[in-house]
């Protein structure tokens, strides 16, 4: 058991316990704060996986923007009687059964795969994954087209959300 494994176990415990709280807490503000804790655990995992840029983007975009937007939305749509009464719908036992079946199916599929004990490849000396990620995002031989499509998607989402939330009077 080396230190990386201990860090992994710590962050996976953080992720799973806060994710359970996200789906089970009655108060939605608490659920959004537990989501921040989950996202932080995922950022730790990205750091363990040596994807430093993604770890920073996870903290800045997910925790800094998306989670705060959730808290704003919860506060804008608050009503007293929302937090009383059941937070789950009537068919939750059926949904629990379905989720257990799907998780068991994923698990059994993974156990059939013979690459499950693959260890991480050695990263070459002096290889900068952030620099090659940046080069891959703007290189015409690699991913410049999906990158531009993502920016068009973000623009469309920006205009669409402003239009939908606008007060048409």
């Amino acid at each position: 058991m080396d230190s990386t494994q201990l860090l992994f176990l710590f962050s996976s415990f953080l992720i799973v316990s806060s994710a359970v709280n996200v789906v089970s807490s009655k108060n939605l503000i608490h659920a959004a704060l537990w989501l921040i804790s989950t996202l932080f655990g995922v950022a730790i995992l990205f750091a363990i996986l040596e994807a430093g840029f993604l770890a920073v983007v996870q903290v800045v975009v997910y925790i800094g923007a998306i989670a705060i937007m959730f808290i704003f939305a919860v506060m804008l749509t608050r009503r007293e009687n929302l937090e009383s009464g059941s937070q789950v719908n009537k068919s939750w036992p059926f949904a629990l059964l379905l989720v257990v079946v799907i998780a068991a199916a994923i698990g059994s599929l993974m156990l059939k795969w013979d690459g499950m004990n693959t260890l991480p490849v050695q990263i070459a000396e002096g290889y900068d994954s952030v620099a090659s990620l940046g080069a891959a995002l703007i290189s015409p031989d690699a991913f410049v087209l999906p990158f531009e499509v993502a920016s068009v998607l973000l623009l469309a989402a920006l205009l669409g959300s402003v239009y939908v939330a606008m007060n048409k009077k």
Partner: protein
Amino acid sequence: MIPISWYLFLSAVLFSIGLFGVLVRRNAIAILLSIELMLNAVNINLVAFWRYGNTVNMAGQVFAIIVFAVAAAEVAVGLSLVYSIYRRRNTVIADELDLMKW
């Protein structure tokens, strides 16, 4: 050294928790929160396969960045839809939004 199975099982568990939340929560904002959990599970898998495969090929990380962008767009549009519905019908409970139910 962590074998890849640890990441795969963690992301399967996280995906299942998120799926359960999407299926059972009544509040529309809570459903969007659970969708974020599922997207994060996918991202863990993508980055783990990048790290355990050929690290010179950046496809895994680029795909994770595209998932970030799609998640941001989904949250922006989803929350503005929820807010718009709240202003018109004064509810965010998914069961009560049965306008198109025959």
